[in-house]
Each structure stands twice: as structure tokens, then as C-alpha cells.
């Protein structure tokens, strides 16, 4: 951020990124249903939002699907990462290649291919589109992110860790649960969070695998934007924006405080080193 031109550039960039969100929020307080005319301040879209059964149900559905899928994906992915970590080069390459497919494959192809698979069972058995298909689909795109977060932690783990635990009297099972799992826990947790975010945010895969009975929030939003648009959507996005911004700001403040402390500590260390010399 040294020159004026780079400052101006960054301001313009962030204006571009935030302008649409700002507009959404401003119009959530607009009295008129119109998206362009400002007719006065109101909160009644917020009140309407909390009375809208369809939106509330789909919000609940989103939470259920995202939590179930990300928890199961975390278990499946952590186990997979542990297994992959012990593999030889060829097997590992094969697994990592397969893990890369859902990450790089266009979402629409993942959506339609799973829809074809589920339809195969729906037409032949009593299996139905709904929570089960949504959760199965979400697990499938969530697992890679868990693996990508856990594997580096396993690689960074000291090979002596398990031996040390066993020397101190752990049996292999205890060594695994008391030494290995706590060591890779940060990776498991960030993988879980990433899976949760992707699940909450997903639209395309849910759109093709939800069927007609269970709607997630993004599916509801999409069908609302298609027919008649209500400022309730604006109110909803304003709430989401405020919640997420608050979470990220708190996280950032904590990190910055740590960063400042580290910087201060290193300054002290440098000063001490100088005086000693």
C-alpha cells in the first residue's frame, strides 16, 4: 500500500466487490417492493422473513444437511487421510487423483451424474429423493476438503510421536487416540469447517439432487429469484452478511492481536540479542 495509485486501485476493487452487497442491504429497509424506488425506511421485510415458513423450513433443512454431511465427511475423510498417509507412492497417487475429481469437476456435472445415479435407484426401489440423496451428494464433495486439510498435518507430524507415546506406556490404540488424533486435530477441524461452508453454500449439486420434497436455502432462493422477487431475500442476505462479517472480524482481530504480540516479542528478542553483543 505504498503509492497513491495502488491505494486508489484497491479502494476501487473493494468498492466493486461490496457495492452489490451494500445495495442488497439498503433495499432490505425499503418500504416499497420495488427494487429501484426508495420510498422510506421499514423493518417489516425482516418481520415477514421470520414468518415465512418456506424460508425457515429450508434454512433448517440446510443446517441439517450441512451438519450431517460435514460430520460424516470429516469421519470418512480423516480415516481416508490416515490410510493414504501410510500408502506407497502409486496407491497414494491413485487416491489423490480420485480425490481431485470432485474438486475440479464442474459442479453441474457432479450434480447431473449423481442425479442419474439416484434416479436409477428411485425408479427401481422405494428409495426417494430427499434428505438421504442430499446428504450423500454433499458428503461426496465435502470429503476431499477434509483430506486436503488432514494430510499436511499427518505429514508434518514427527515420526517419533507414536514411539514416544508407546515408550511412556501407551498401547497402540491409546497412542493413536492420545497422541496422533490431538496432533492432527487442527487439520480435522479446519477440514470440517471447510466442508460445512461448502455444504451451506452449495446450490448446483443440491439443485439436482434434492428432488421436490426437501428444499435447501439456496434452492429456495433460486426459485424465488425466478418468479416473484421479494425484499425478504434482501433482508435474509443482510442478516447473513452481518453474521459472517462479525465472525470474520472477530477471527481477524484475534489473529492480528497474536500477530502484533509476535512482532513485539521478536522486537524484544532482537533488542536483547543486540545488547548481549
Amino acid at each position, binding site marked *: *500500500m*505504498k503509492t497513491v495509485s*495502488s491505494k486508489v486501485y*484497491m479502494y476501487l476493487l473493494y468498492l466493486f*466487490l*461490496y*457495492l*452489490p*452487497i451494500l*445495495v*442488497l442491504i439498503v433495499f432490505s429497509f425499503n418500504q416499497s417492493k420495488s*427494487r*429501484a424506488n426508495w420510498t422510506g425506511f421499514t423493518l417489516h421485510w425482516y418481520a415477514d422473513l421470520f414468518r415465512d415458513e418456506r424460508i425457515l423450513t429450508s434454512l433448517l433443512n440446510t443446517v441439517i444437511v450441512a451438519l450431517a454431511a460435514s460430520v460424516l465427511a470429516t469421519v*470418512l475423510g480423516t480415516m*481416508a487421510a*490416515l*490410510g493414504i*498417509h*501410510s500408502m506407497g507412492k502409486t496407491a497414494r*497417487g491413485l487416491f*489423490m487423483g*480420485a480425490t481431485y*475429481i470432485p474438486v*475440479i469437476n*464442474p*459442479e*453441474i*456435472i457432479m450434480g*447431473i*451424474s449423481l442425479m*442419474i*445415479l439416484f434416479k*436409477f435407484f428411485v425408479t427401481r426401489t422405494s428409495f426417494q429423493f430427499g434428505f438421504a440423496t442430499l446428504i*450423500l*451428494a454433499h458428503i*461426496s464433495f465435502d*470429503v476431499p476438503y477434509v483430506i*486436503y486439510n488432514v*494430510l499436511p498435518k499427518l505429514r508434518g507430524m514427527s515420526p517419533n510421536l507414536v*514411539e514416544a507415546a508407546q515408550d511412556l506406556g501407551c498401547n*497402540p490404540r491409546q497412542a493413536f487416540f492420545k497422541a496422533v488424533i490431538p496432533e492432527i486435530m487442527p487439520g480435522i477441524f479446519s477440514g470440517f469447517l471447510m466442508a460445512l461452508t461448502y455444504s451451506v*453454500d452449495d*446450490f*448446483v449439486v443440491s*439443485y*439436482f439432487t434434492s428432488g421436490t420434497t426437501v428444499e435447501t*436455502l*439456496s434452492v429456495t*432462493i*433460486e426459485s424465488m*429469484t425466478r418468479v416473484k422477487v421479494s425484499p425478504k431475500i434482501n433482508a*435474509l*442476505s443482510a442478516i*447473513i*452478511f452481518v453474521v459472517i462479517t462479525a465472525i*470474520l*472480524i472477530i477471527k481477524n482481530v484475534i489473529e*492480528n492481536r497474536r*500477530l*502484533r504480540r509476535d512482532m513485539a516479542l521478536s522486537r524484544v528478542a532482537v533488542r536483547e540479542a543486540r545488547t548481549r553483543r
Partner: protein
Amino acid sequence: MKAPRSLAIPYAVWVLIFTVVPLALVIGFAFSDTDGKITLENIFAMSDYMAVLFRSILFAIAATVICLVIAFPAAYIISRANAINRSTLVVLLMVPMWINFLLRTYAWMTLLEQNGVINRLLGLIDLGPYQLINNSGAVILGMVYNYLPFMILPLYSVMVKIDQSIIEAAQDLGSNKIRLVRKVLLPLSMPGISTGVIAVFVPSVSTFIISRMLGGGTNDLIGDIIEMQFSGNSYNPHLGSAMALVLMIIVLFMMSLFNQFGSEEDVQL
């Protein structure tokens, strides 16, 4: 001692059922008709959609290039800021990404409409109204807006590792700004560029919501046509699968062009 390899077996089964089999089904559907007979009809029928396919690729390339041009200086500026500014700027990039992309795209409808915010503001100074929505520009804008952070973040993560002394050395040896970018920054940022190009191109070429919301029905992309084959009135999963197959080939082609720089487990975001 290492964890047993067998822990990966459930995942192997999962990948087989939910990744390999579905993709095999798509290929199977693409080469068969409703009676299950093998046919090339669906592939030949694709010739009717060449214009759409061409438009999708063109729009995606345009969006990718624009993202790269905007992101390169931005990522560089962020990477040269001090640690505290850096983390704040990165968080500010990520906040919009956490808002549902349907809502973000919907916001652009509000801005660009005939009597939308931008045209009303222009009307105050006796300009317009201009046709800002339902054209190709609006669709590309929607792609750039939604996927720009996917370009900035991987670029930033390689640029932040470039030592300031390398840049200073180039300047001391007489590089002007253009030479500095061409001879130093660009080669060193290559892994970030290839990750970013794929991260923007793939969702752009396969989108069906951005084109529907901002393109106004006259700018259908391959994603729209595929979606119609599966959930619209013209239900035809065989033709849809053929299109999906073509889309996959395009994506694989792009990957083979750009992915040689990235390592297999180097996934951003």
C-alpha cells in the same frame, strides 16, 4: 508405526459409488438412447448447439482474462503490504464469497436493470437509461464478479512468498516496471496463475445461473442447455449427458494446458 492402510477402504468404496459410477453412467447415457441401445445420435445432435458451446468457451475465456488482469496488480499490492494489513485485506476479499452467490448475482440485477440503481443515478445527471442487463457483457460481468477472488487468492499466496530483495535486485540492475513484471513477477507467479485460471474458467464455462439471471434468455450457455435436459420440460438425460461429456473434455483440455505447474495436493481455498 503408521496407521493401517485399510482405513482408506470406506473412502475407496465411496469414491467408486459416488464418483466413478456416476461419471461412467454419464458416459453410458451419452452413447445410448431411451431403449438402452448404443447410438451416436446424441453426439451428432450436439452440432445444433455449437453456437452455445462456442459462446460458453468465449465468455469463460473473456472472464478469465479480465480476472487475471484485475487480480495480478491487486494480489501484488496485497502481498507487499505489512502483515496486519495483509490479513485484513485477505479477509475483506473473502467476506463476499461467504454470501450465497445467487444473492450476489441477484444484487447485480438490482444494479443493472432498466430502472435499476445505476440507471437511476445516471438519470439524475440526464444520462441513459442504458441497456446494461440481458446482454453478453452482463453475463461476463457476473462471472468476473463471482469468481475474481478465486484468481486473487492463489496469486496472492504465491506472490507473498516472493522475497522483496529479488524485486529490489531486479530494480537495482536496471529493470523498469514492465521488465520487472515480465522477467521476475510473472515467471515466479506462474503456479498461482495456473491455479487461478482453472479456478475461474471451470465454474464460468459451466455456469447456468449467471447466464439465466443476467443474460435474459438470449445468452444461454452450455450449462443452461444441460440443465434443461435434466430438470426442464425437454427432459432428455441422454442428450444432456452427451453435452456434459463435451463439457468435461473442454475442462480436461484446459487442465492439461494449465495444470502442469500446480502440484497434486496444492489446493487453494
